[in-house]
């Protein structure tokens, strides 16, 4: 019954060459990140999380220091890109292999963005459908709460929560999230974007409730679960799916910003944002430490944006959701 519009949308998406090319690029980045341990073990032959300040490596058959003291005698400079398997992109100030860290960093960044997006989608769907269906004071409370979070500048909310929760993690009854765990930034990012999706879901639920097929179901005495899972969810789903690629893209930018400010992913873990931050002090001597992970952020976000546009055109050809999707961009941190 609901198969054919979905199949139609999928066919439309398949014909979108830009979206397909972006999907391939995204798959390559994801695969490379997943293969991070393989790269570290078999190509770089190093542990990208252990400091290696006093180590040496072989370049063109010669033994060189990974972190060499400067000629002036003040400070030291890590090795630059080598075109060898080891230290392909050079080392950071602690002598760690940047290429291997970048792949591991991709794991963190992608994981956080994805977990946060799923979290946003779950909470927003529940809140939006409950508010839209229940109406009355339940709707009033949920809506006012969403309005409040909406009015809180999103970057301020993110860094406020991150700063506070980093002190000792989250302890809520049975749920504990360690301060150094990847779940912490994922939960924070997942929460702050809830209103941007919950409001459109609520709006969609409200407009669905006025339609004949839903009124018919109610008149037939359909139970609430039957109404939600049988009638509402399948029709709200396109709104959520259209938002998802954009939410993941925004999440990656937000995570990298938090990590750049040292309030995202915590050591010894790495993410693309923390590596850009590591490279800040080496910017003029070893620029690749900062530039390389940034390029991966740009490529990933770009791919997700193109896919997002493709999904939007496929599922929502008349552009009903487009205007609402735009508000999410306000979340991006500058």
């Amino acid at each position, binding site marked *: 019954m609901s198969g054919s519009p979905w199949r139609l949308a999928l066919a439309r998406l398949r014909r979108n060459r830009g979206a397909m090319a972006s999907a391939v690029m995204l798959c390559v980045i994801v695969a490379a990140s997943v293969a991070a341990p393989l790269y570290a073990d078999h190509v770089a032959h190093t542990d990208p999380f252990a400091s290696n300040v006093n180590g040496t490596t072989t370049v063109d058959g010669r033994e060189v220091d990974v972190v060499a003291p400067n000629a002036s005698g003040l400070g030291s400079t890590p090795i630059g890109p080598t075109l060898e398997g080891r230290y392909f992109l050079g080392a950071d100030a602690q002598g760690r292999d940047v290429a291997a860290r970048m792949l591991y960093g991709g794991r963190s960044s992608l994981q956080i963005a994805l977990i946060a997006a799923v979290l946003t989608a779950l909470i927003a769907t529940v809140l939006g459908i409950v508010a839209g269906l229940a109406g009355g004071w339940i709707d009033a409370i949920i809506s006012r709460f969403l309005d409040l979070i909406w009015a809180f500048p999103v970057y301020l909310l993110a860094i406020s929560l991150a700063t506070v929760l980093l002190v000792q993690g989250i302890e809520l009854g049975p749920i504990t999230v360690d301060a150094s765990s990847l779940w912490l930034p994922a939960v924070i990012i997942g929460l702050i974007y809830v209103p941007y999706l919950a409001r459109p879901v609520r709006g969609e639920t409200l407009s669905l409730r006025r339609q004949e097929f839903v009124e018919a179901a109610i008149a037939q005495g359909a139970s609430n679960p039957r109404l939600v899972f049988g009638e509402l969810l399948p029709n709200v789903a396109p709104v959520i799916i259209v938002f998802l690629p954009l939410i993941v893209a925004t999440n990656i930018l937000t995570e*990298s910003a938090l990590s750049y400010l040292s309030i995202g992913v915590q050591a010894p873990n790495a993410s693309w944002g923390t590596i850009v931050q590591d490279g800040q002090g080496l910017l003029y001597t070893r620029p690749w430490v900062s530039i390389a992970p940034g390029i991966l952020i740009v490529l990933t976000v770009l791919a997700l944006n193109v896919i997002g546009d493709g999904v939007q055109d496929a599922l929502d050809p008349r552009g009903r959701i487009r205007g609402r999707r735009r508000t999410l961009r306000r979340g991006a941190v500058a």
Partner: protein
Amino acid sequence: MIAFTARRLASAVLVMLALSVLVFLIFFATPGIDPARQMAGKNPTPETIAAIEAEFGLDRPLPVQYLKMMDRLVVSRDLESYSNRGAEILPQIARAAPVTLSLVLGAAILWVVLSVAIGVAAAVLRGRIWDPLLMAIALIGMSMPVFWLGQVANLFTQDRWHDTVLFSWVPPLGYTPLTEDPVLWFKHLVIPWITLAILYIGFYSRVLRAALIETESQDFVRTARAKGISERRVLVRHTLRTSMIGFVSLFGLDLGALVAGGALLTEVVFGLPGVGRLTYRALANLDLPVIMATVLYGAFFVVLMNALVDVLYARLDPRIREA
């Protein structure tokens, strides 16, 4: 209309109040956050902590602490920093605000002019190679993290190409007030302006192009053409004017967020002592009064701009007033 405006402003005030409570709770009621211990330095004795708690009223119940802080922030306006004892906060914000304003207004001029030009060009050149090309570039601009773009800009203008004619005029990172040396002020801000604007040009040109194409298919545009008005006039007087409504409201919201300190990353990466960097430093030191002050300062602009945009919309479209 007046009733709507009054109602909207009243709700904005309520939202501000609720936000101040929320921010207060985040920083004072989260377990593990102990400002007294933070101020006491390393290995404090319980007596020192108790003395600090008494001095700053941190031993009082939370509602009292909240009211006291709001009183010193809004009424007597002498709220002081915790980590920088005796430093009043409002003068700090007053010093930082012009820096942020300089950064944001310059960038805003750049991004509005360029995104209108690009958006119109893409819409007019629809069906030719220029349209997808411009839109692809716009999408890349949208996808860059600003702190990274700032670092790349610094790499070339401060180091790699600094000795070439192209960038030899770029001063070291930092800021000079407009009143002190207008030329140096300008030189300091050019690269941050461009960096911040690139982020927004992509988004705004895409929004404008989409709006132009949508308006293009509407009846009044066809009527205007049928009356024999020149293409140029149709574009400027009819299509563009209608398409700018969404653009302007987005612009209001973004401008509010940026003036509020939303350009935090840009300020940090270029070493500009604005409101965003002040907030960031306060957060790093867990300097709660400064955080309260800057977050509320930020929320004020965001809430105000939200209200203004709503009122503007209601003026343009009477249907909204009744809802």
